[in-house]
């Protein structure tokens, strides 16, 4: 059965800290891995990764994929209170548009 596992499930840090969120997957016919940030309701798109070893970067956020070891990490440097959210990892597998999500990592950044 396809599955996506995120760790840790929750994390509390202080402003300025750097955090690393993990996502491992076992998905048949892997096509892409996506990261989303969910603050209140709508998950907002952060990154899509399809190739191993190519870092995607946006401001203080970056992500990389390892298709051999079947995992991805999301890094956030110099965290701010506005980074507090649930971070969701999802994998697109089969030939439909079905995204398989992990449980999410809840990040709390304290001032």
């Amino acid at each position, binding site marked *: 059965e396809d599955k*996506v596992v995120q760790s840790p499930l929750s994390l509390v840090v202080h402003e300025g800290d750097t955090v690393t969120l993990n996502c491992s997957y076992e998905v048949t016919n892997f096509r892409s891995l996506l990261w989303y940030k969910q603050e209140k*309701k709508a998950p907002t*798109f952060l990154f899509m990764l399809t190739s191993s070893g190519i870092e995607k970067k946006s401001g203080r956020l970056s992500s990389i994929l390892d298709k051999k070891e079947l995992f991805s990490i999301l890094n956030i440097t110099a965290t701010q209170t506005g980074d507090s959210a649930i971070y969701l990892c999802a994998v697109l597998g089969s030939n439909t548009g079905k995204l398989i*999500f992990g449980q999410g990592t809840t990040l709390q950044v304290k001032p």
Partner: protein
Amino acid sequence: DAGVTQSPTHLIKTRGQHVTLRCSPISGHKSVSWYQQVLGQGPQFIFQYYEKEERGRGNFPDRFSARQFPNYSSELNVNALLLGDSALYLCASSSGAGGALDTQYFGPGTRLTVL
């Protein structure tokens, strides 16, 4: 540009009733997918529609059904509601049928509470 819109925002129903949730995709997007997110978990795939055809169905009972209209908007219907159907229902739109580079963009969701 307007993003994905969903209505209603919140809904309270009682067991046994049915509900219809609505979604309008981003302009130009032809695919709509529905997800159920129970508190504390990641979203679970329910359906995908592309060009008005069902392209994928998740592990949900037949009480759940959906359709897509010629303008690419979509409805999710749930019959004979159970307490366990209480969740945030998310709609996502994408331009294509689910290719590797097809990013799904989510709407704000409908919070359904079943009493």
